[in-house]
């Protein structure tokens, strides 16, 4: 490989040229906030607290911290450094390291595009709930009435109003994935508005993103703080917090915990999308990317922890409310059956009364079929993902005073968290497209971003079908997981073994002014690739297939054509890695007229040409 000094002359001139043309951040804060916004997303709010709760509270923080230090931070540092050094998006970076690895960039592009499709659907759902938060009472408080107004709709009676609102009035979910159910017009409207909101922030690339993120990244923290203060005043909040943080050290023996910690960290930091590489490529080259990586990684984890406190306080409050309701219904049953005076039985003296009645007439008491009310059972009803936001949290909100305000704040916060992550996804699509130079230069940037948004909206209409939620689950499980692991693994192998770890360290020293120490080197060379490999293998052998059948959850198996699509979704993005390598190999074989390897000039020219061709579209 050609050493950087020999190319220096060329690259210096290349840099001078492209520093005029390539867009850049207004200031460092913008860049950091954008990276933080990309990393901090919906998963920090609705996935991490769930994992904490399920895997023994405080004890989960240990595998989480280990995964962060040995897998998350090194990969993050690597992506930021390589993007900053080579000043290109994912396609440009990997092609310049080696033309055979160009497929990595294309894979990142596909994954970013596919993830952006379904991620914005979630934002559309959030918008739907946001639009509905301006009513009193909130529409998910009560079931709708049946035709003669004597009771509620039976489907809602079997379930709860919150469930009904989510599954029937929002999703209008079909029975299974094969029944498509047609386009739901209200979801199409919400998806269109979500894409318009994304477009207006993304319209000029990082110019407009950089302004938008000042609001979209800081506002969620404000809302989380408000929720924290409010949640701690609610009754039952301390039960939830104690439950969340009580460490259960036994769980550490379960390998699933370590696997989930590693996957959580990996997906939480939004690695392998190409978005982080794109963002850091707009930096000046002399920038301390080590401190950037540490800041972004630590802020991401801190946000997860900080978000879990109000979430769990509120879940504790809800569990407490449900527990009280359960007890009250038992009291009412007893009062009515034994004709005891109204409100003579209270929750405090319930036990005495129960024993007395059971003693005097045990058969009658038994026939009443009283429910067993256990606070622990209610606390155990954990939820993550859309279930947490749209079912559990909405139920908690209607029991809080001033429901509309909390509902609006919550959904605006979720929307902004998701929006800042969408920016990263779309940059992961835009920058490689510009690198690949498939776009004619007369198309202005506004039009290009508009076309990207329009295409994504069009393809994303699949998620507005009656079966849309099933498709979203499939995309989430199969696109947003395995391909990323594969890409990340090849990324780290490319940089460490193809680019050369020595050269990489020298580059970093030139950029930041100090050599990365032994810790980073060991991680990059050995530990992180190994961890990625283990996580990938474990992921392949641990799958879950479930579909939800409202009003009861049923586990159904996917029909064969759907299973085929699942596999296709996992494989298709990463196909480009071997395909591009093969393509370049064929070209090399064809041009084999005494040039067994790239000459120095060729390599330098390659670097220069990449720098020169950056962003001819800057207006």
């Amino acid at each position: 490989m050609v050493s950087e000094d020999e190319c220096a002359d060329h690259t210096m001139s290349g840099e001078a040229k492209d520093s005029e043309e390539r867009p850049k951040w207004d200031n460092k804060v913008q860049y950091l906030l954008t990276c933080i916004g990309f990393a901090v997303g919906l998963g920090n709010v609705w996935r991490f607290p769930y994992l904490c709760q399920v895997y023994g509270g405080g004890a989960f923080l240990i595998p989480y911290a280990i995964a962060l230090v040995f897998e998350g931070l090194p990969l993050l540092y690597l992506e930021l450094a390589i993007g900053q050094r080579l000043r290109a998006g994912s396609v440009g970076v990997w092609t310049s390291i080696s033309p055979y690895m160009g497929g990595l960039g294309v894979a990142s592009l596909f994954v970013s595009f596919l993830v952006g499709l379904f991620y914005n659907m979630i934002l559309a759902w959030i918008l739907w709930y946001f639009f509905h938060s301006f009513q009193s009472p909130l529409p998910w408080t009560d079931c709708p009435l049946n035709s003669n107004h004597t009771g509620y709709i039976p489907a809602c009676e079997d379930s709860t109003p919150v469930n009904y609102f989510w599954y029937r009035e929002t999703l209008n979910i079909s029975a299974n994935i094969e029944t498509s159910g047609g386009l739901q017009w209200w979801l199409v409207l919400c998806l269109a508005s979500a894409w318009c909101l994304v477009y207006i922030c993304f319209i000029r690339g990082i110019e407009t993103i950089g302004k938008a993120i000042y609001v979209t990244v800081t506002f969620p923290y404000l809302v989380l703080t408000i929720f924290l203060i409010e949640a701690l005043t609610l009754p039952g909040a301390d039960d939830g917090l104690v439950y969340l943080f009580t460490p259960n050290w036994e769980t550490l023996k379960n390998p699933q915990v370590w696997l989930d910690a590693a996957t959580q960290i990996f997906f939480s930091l939004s690695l392998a999308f190409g978005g982080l590489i794109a963002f850091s490529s707009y930096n000046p080259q002399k920038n301390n990317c080590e401190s950037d990586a540490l800041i972004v990684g630590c802020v991401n984890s801190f946000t997860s922890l900080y978000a879990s406190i109000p979430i769990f306080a509120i879940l504790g409050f809800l569990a407490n409310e449900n527990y009280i309701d359960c007890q009250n219904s038992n009291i009412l049953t007893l009062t009515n059956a034994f004709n005891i005076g109204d409100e003579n039985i209270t929750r405090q003296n319930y036990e005495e009364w129960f024993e007395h009645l059971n003693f005097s007439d045990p058969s009658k008491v038994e026939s009443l079929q009283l429910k067993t009310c256990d606070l622990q059972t209610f606390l155990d009803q954990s939820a993550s993902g859309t279930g947490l936001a749209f079912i559990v949290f909405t139920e908690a909100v209607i029991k809080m005073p001033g429901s509309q305000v909390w509902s609006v704040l919550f959904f605006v916060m979720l929307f902004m968290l998701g929006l800042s992550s969408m920016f990263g996804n779309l940059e992961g699509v835009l920058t490689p497209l510009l690198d690949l130079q498939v776009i004619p230069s007369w198309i202005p940037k506004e039009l290009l971003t508009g076309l990207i948004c329009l295409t994504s909206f069009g393809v994303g209409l699949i998620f507005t079908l009656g079966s849309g939620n099933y498709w979203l689950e499939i995309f989430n499980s199969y696109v947003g997981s395995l391909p990323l692991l594969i890409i990340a693994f090849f990324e780290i192998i490319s940089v460490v073994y193809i680019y050369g770890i020595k050269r990489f360290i020298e580059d970093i020293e030139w950029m930041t002014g100090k050599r990365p120490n032994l810790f980073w080197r060991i991680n990059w060379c050995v530990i992180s690739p190994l961890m990625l490999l283990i996580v990938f293998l474990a992921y392949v052998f641990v799958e879950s297939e479930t579909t939800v059948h409202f009003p009861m959850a049923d586990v159904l198996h996917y029909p064969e054509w759907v299973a085929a699509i699942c596999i296709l979704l996992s494989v298709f993005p990463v196909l480009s890695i071997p395909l591009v390598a093969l393509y370049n190999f064929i070209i090399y074989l064809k041009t084999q007229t005494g040039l067994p390897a790239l000459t120095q000039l060729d390599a330098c020219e390659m670097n220069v040409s990449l720098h020169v061709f950056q962003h001819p579209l800057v207006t």
Partner: protein
Amino acid sequence: MLEKLLILLFASNVLAQVCMPDAPEAYKVRLSIKTALGDQAYTWNDNELYLFRATLAFAMRNYLSGQLFDVSNILVCNETERVSFWFMVKSVTNPTTLIEKQHVENAIKESRHRINSAFLLTDQTLEFLGILPTLASPFVPATPPWLIAFGVVMGVVGAGIVYFLVAAVVQRKRKKTLDEEEEAKGATENEIAGENLDGIYNTSFSDDEKVTEM
């Protein structure tokens, strides 16, 4: 023999006028006064029961217009501490028969709100077991509120997008004209530059000035 018959007849008459729980024409009523009113709860006593019978008679009068029901037509029995009891309605036209359940139900449904109000209770705290309360249909505005919120957001966003696109077009046009001007300027500047380089001092001008300074 005749005496026994008479006694039986009399007994059956009396029976018809005595309220029995679980009879086919009887309804059970349950009141939850403390739940509804808390500190302001009144104690249930015979006067309250009298009011109840009067309210029911009122409801029956409204339903079966013409028939003047009285408090004595409402039979009550099996009062409990819960405050629950059974009642039956005797017919006005034929005092030995009881009004059928369906009629009583319809009468109560019509006047439910008045009966509730008489006792400061609601459909949930004054229960007639077997008679489902007609639930109040929620207020449905003409335009669903969510569409209004959607319209506002889309309006603002649409305006923003139009602004950005127009600004981009204007900027391009301005750049184009600037580029053209620069090209034109560039040509003339070269000529001027050429002249400056020559820098020959033209004495004829200065001579003229000396002459005209007179």
